[in-house]
């Protein structure tokens, strides 16, 4: 039972990371219908930017205030996302190119980001300090590393914020309006270009945060992006592409299936790597709308 409870904490933490990745997809996908596969590399970039902020700014032994790393990641990734939208996506949308064109261009962006990371930071993994050290924390019957609880706390607050943004602010409603009907939204006076730019900036910031949160467990590594991109997308498909809550739910389901399967199913550990792919195929084929259906227009 202890074993199971500890597994719960660790699965919750991974699920939160997957959920954040799914959220990053969703923020871009809803108003633009663009699946931005470069999000995985953006999370790796976030990890490197955060670690770089913590380790190179003259305070030895990673004693810098962690909030600075978080702010740096949100600002730098937000700017990068905005710049990518400006330089690659906007000209294509303006030209009226098919929706696959920006998706393919973003695959080029993916390679640019990944290879630039190896050029700047080298191919070796960069250790990332957890903000609360390597302590073990027990809350009631649940026990886990401090970083796992940190991930869960940050993710839940972030999801609450994003939910509030979409449900309660004018900007959030504008996003939703564009998602439901681009033309109608434009006719209502919503600035499509600004919504798209904001979507890319926001998606990049969320992805970057996910990378930073993840990095103490895996180190910042240039290869960390692609698995996160795939797991995040799987989470998105499981939860449904329509709703913010779906992203978190999908991430948690994926993580629990992965970890419970790896722990209790009598199969070689290598085969458990197949779980996200099998789940992704199953959901794409059997329930492409995901578990939580998108909200109808009101």
């Amino acid at each position, binding site marked *: 039972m202890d074993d199971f409870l500890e597994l719960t904490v660790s699965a919750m933490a991974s699920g939160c990371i997957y959920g954040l990745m799914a959220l990053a997809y969703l923020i871009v996908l809803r108003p633009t219908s663009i699946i931005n596969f470069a999000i995985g590399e953006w999370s790796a970039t976030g990890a490197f930017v955060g670690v770089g902020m913590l380790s190179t700014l003259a305070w030895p032994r990673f004693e810098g205030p962690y909030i600075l790393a978080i702010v740096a990641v949100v600002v730098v990734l937000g700017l990068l996302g905005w710049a990518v939208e400006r330089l690659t996506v906007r000209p294509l949308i303006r030209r009226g190119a098919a929706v*696959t064109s920006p998706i393919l261009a973003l695959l080029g962006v993916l390679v*640019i980001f990944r290879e630039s990371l190896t050029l700047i930071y080298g191919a070796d993994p960069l250790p990332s300090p957890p903000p609360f050290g390597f302590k073990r924390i027990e809350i009631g019957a649940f026990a886990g590393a401090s970083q796992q609880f940190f991930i869960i706390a940050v993710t839940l607050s972030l999801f609450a914020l994003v939910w509030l943004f979409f449900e309660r602010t004018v900007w959030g409603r504008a996003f939703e309006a564009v998602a439901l009907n681009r033309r109608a939204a434009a006719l209502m006076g919503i600035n499509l270009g600004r919504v798209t730019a904001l979507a890319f900036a926001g998606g990049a910031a969320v992805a970057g945060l996910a990378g930073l949160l993840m990095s103490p467990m895996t180190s910042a590594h240039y290869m960390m992006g692609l698995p996160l991109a795939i797991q995040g997308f799987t989470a998105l498909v499981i939860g449904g592409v329509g709703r913010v809550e779906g992203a978190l739910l999908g991430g948690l389901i994926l993580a629990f299936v992965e970890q419970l399967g790896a722990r209790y199913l009598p199969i070689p550990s290598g085969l458990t790597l197949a779980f996200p792919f099998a789940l992704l195929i199953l959901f794409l084929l059997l329930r492409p709308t995901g578990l939580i259906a998108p909200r109808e227009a009101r």
Partner: protein
Amino acid sequence: MRALLWLASIIAASLLAFMLGGYATDVYRKMLVWIALALSYNFLFGVAGQIAFSQFAFAGVGAYGVVILAHKLGLPFGVALAGAIALCSLLAFIVAVPSTRLEGFYLALATLAFAQLFLVVVNEGGDLTGGTGGIAGYRLPDVFGYTLRGPWYTVVLVLLVALTLHILLRLERSSFGRACRAIKDNPAVAAAMGIDVRRTKVITFTLTSTLAGLAGAAYAYVDNVINPPVFGLDNIFLLLFMIIVGGMGRPAGAMLGAVLLYLAPFVLEPIVGHAYLVLFGVLVVLAILFQPKGLIGLIDRLVDRLGPEQRA
């Protein structure tokens, strides 16, 4: 006339095989495999508009299929090759039937999941697939009494490219090819014109994946080694980039893109190191933004511009 041109090209490409040294032969052979893969991928992605990430997985099925059947199970080579190709077609068909229902990039992600599943299976296949180390130490047996070694195997690869090109050109110029293009432009209109959209998509996917399997089987005897990373995701991105840079939907563009992006690292790596990959990414973005028809479109324009002057 056209037949003569084909014959001349095949002979020229084959003669080249006899003039190259050991290292250059290796480069040339792999380039030919890339061209074959680029041609079939171009039909799937450039002509039919299906973005799939499974091309290298099917090449892997072909490669692993023929090596396992011929060398692990000891079947006669002809049977092994036919078996591997049949397995490829069957798997491609099984993947195609449900996943061609998916639109746009969702097909890409379903096939990406399939490709990753293939890698997991190969990595975990134990003795049969050789795990992460792959399979080595086999040699191409005599085929119908012929020993295909050295340059003669390169000629086999030249014929593979010619066969792939021939099949795809015939297909593209047929009503089937026009149906593919119609579906790419607008599936709803294509269906309204009486084209069976699902059937066309399934056939295209199955056929091009089978051709990829054939190229994979041929690749298995280039180095006489196969291992999982070759059939991984990095290469499918490169293949996609070759088509985009060369020119989507044009066989000549696909061949041009394959040759350029395959050979570029040999020139660029000594100068800029791994930064050439950044360059590839930039090239792809620039191509999509400013030259959606790729390099072949650029060449077309140049030829058009030169044309009138020649006539004058």
